[in-house]
């Protein structure tokens, strides 16, 4: 049988070639006339909400609040970048919105790199180092994927605010730690699947040549695992970038909060200030959209890989 789902095991390189016989293609193209209109109709319907917000973000405040964005097509009014410059300086919780952008950057990059690095080391140990209880531990880690992160919020927050937890790690670092904890089972599971299936001869030949585990890990395993690491990194990065819950619970005050927090604060307090909300929402979306458009293949694989988690 051929694949029933793409890329299962999920992080294997994807090569779906179209090997359809020509006659089938011709038959298909002629037999589904009306179907393609359904597709384009849905595609259009899916695009309209985002398009409306995008157009509105370039309209002056008075225009947004007096006429619908669709009237812009018939009587194009003024186009302005003022909403963007205003929202960047706009104060949310006493801080300019631009600061929240950098907070998100500061949360999301380590929030992706830390768990993947740690998980890669652990996956290597679980695959290529011999110790007692190795297989049982692997099974246990996979089983942990059923735990939804909501189970840990209350006890973990208590621990983070207790005396046992170093004060230096309060704020942004505790958001990193929380994301690393919640991302760990999936990351170890996926990386172990990949690292464990690398050819045994390669690793053993290096061992015979006297290479240490560290140099095998750094020189052989990491370079070979780039596709798996990239998919996982994109999944985790976007997950953390788009997260609201974890940062809200563990981040403390406005100083450590990401854009999602600032946007919800604006929705709550100034829900009718659409000139700010439209531009703000787009600033928060720019990075995920760039990742999506430029790395779509890895993005799909990462998303599929993430689908095994609870």
């Amino acid at each position, binding site marked *: 049988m051929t694949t029933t789902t793409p890329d299962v095991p999920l992080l294997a390189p994807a090569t779906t070639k179209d090997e359809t016989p020509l006659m089938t293609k011709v038959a298909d193209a002629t037999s*589904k006339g009306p179907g393609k209109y359904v597709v384009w109709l849905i595609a259009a319907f899916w695009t309209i909400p985002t398009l409306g917000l995008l157009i509105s973000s370039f309209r002056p405040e008075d225009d947004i609040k007096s006429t619908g964005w669709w009237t812009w097509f018939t009587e194009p009014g003024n186009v302005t970048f003022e909403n963007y410059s205003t929202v960047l300086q706009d104060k949310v919780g006493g801080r300019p919105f631009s600061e929240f952008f950098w907070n998100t950057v500061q949360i999301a990059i380590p929030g992706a790199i830390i768990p993947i690095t740690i998980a890669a080391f652990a996956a290597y140990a679980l695959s290529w180092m011999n110790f007692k209880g190795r297989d049982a531990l692997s099974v246990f880690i996979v089983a942990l994927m059923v735990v939804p992160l*909501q189970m840990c919020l209350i006890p973990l927050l208590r621990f983070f605010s207790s005396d046992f937890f170093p004060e230096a790690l309060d704020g942004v670092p505790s958001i990193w730690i929380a994301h690393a904890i919640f991302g760990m089972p999936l990351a170890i599971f996926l990386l172990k699947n990949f690292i464990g299936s690398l050819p045994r001869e390669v690793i053993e030949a290096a061992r015979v040549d006297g290479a240490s585990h560290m140099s095998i890990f750094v020189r052989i395993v990491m370079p070979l695992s780039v596709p798996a690491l990239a998919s996982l990194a994109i999944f985790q990065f976007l997950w953390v970038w788009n997260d609201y819950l974890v940062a809200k619970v563990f981040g403390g005050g406005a100083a450590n909060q990401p854009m999602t927090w600032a946007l919800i604060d604006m929705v709550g307090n100034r829900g009718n200030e659409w000139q700010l909300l439209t531009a703000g929402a787009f600033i*928060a979306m720019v990075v995920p959209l760039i990742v999506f458009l430029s790395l779509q293949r890895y993005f799909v694989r990462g998303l599929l890989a993430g689908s095994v*988690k609870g």
Partner: protein
Amino acid sequence: MGDIFSSLGLVVVGIAIFVTVIGALYWLASQLPEPWRERARTAVFIGPGLILLLGLVIPALLNFRFSFLDRDEEWYGLGNYRDVFTNGNNIKVLTNTLWWGILVTGISTVIGVVIARFADRMRGEPIAKAAIFLPTAISMVGAGIIWNFVYSPREYGLLNSLIQLWPGEQEVTFFLQDPKLFGIQSDWVPGLNSLLIMVVIIWIQAGFATVVISAALKGVPDDLVEAARIDGATERQAFFKVVLPYIKGTIITVMTTTVIAVLKIFDIIQTMGKGGSFGTSTMANEMYEQAFPQDNEGLGAAWAVLLFIAVAPIVYVNARNQRAMREGR
């Protein structure tokens, strides 16, 4: 802008510290005599991961205990669970979550199948699919704002503008009151606010369904469909009797993944439903609302346990299904 350098600087410093610590520990381990050297090296590799996993396991166990405590941390037995299943507001939350699971999962999957089927080998297929897939990339908060704008009142809200095209129809204010579906007053029927928020999640999840199902459709062997056609099956019969059963595993993956995502719906309720007011709350939202803003950690913990009980079997089914698909090929 000082902000850029301070935040990126912190990022670089954090990563550098981490790499240095691991490297130093590995070097220290290498100084030990055998057999300790190998054991210590293993510990350096797997230790950080294990510590983080403890940060998952211990809190999850403690959470069970918290779920038996009341607001003042006195022993409350199964009281929180009783409150969940008897209090009217909480029943609304449970039925809402149920509707979420049924409607969002069902509709997203059907849309995924329809698009995957009709877009297959169509001209412009990548563009159409990208348009439908795009919402998957953005945050729930961003999606919430996009749709808040669609649902907003007066002249600039697309939905209300369409409603007002009907003669005599009044503008409807969503999310600031609890308009009922056909005026039905019942905990078992979702209100309009909930349905409108479900549309947003369908908008997000359908893209995922489309991409996954579409890839599976391309893996269906042509001779299989060809054989059905030669046996006299119509296009429709071939699809429902041959193709769909063939990709059953993938459809289960899509549905289980969507159910899990839906059970954990939270950000969008905060963005659009004012934190679960006006009949919009769901389980994960209620967990947060009770544990933090309402400061009733026991009840919040009980909601988390219920969430766990709901999610765990679905994850299990998903894992078994994925394994079966791997072995089947």
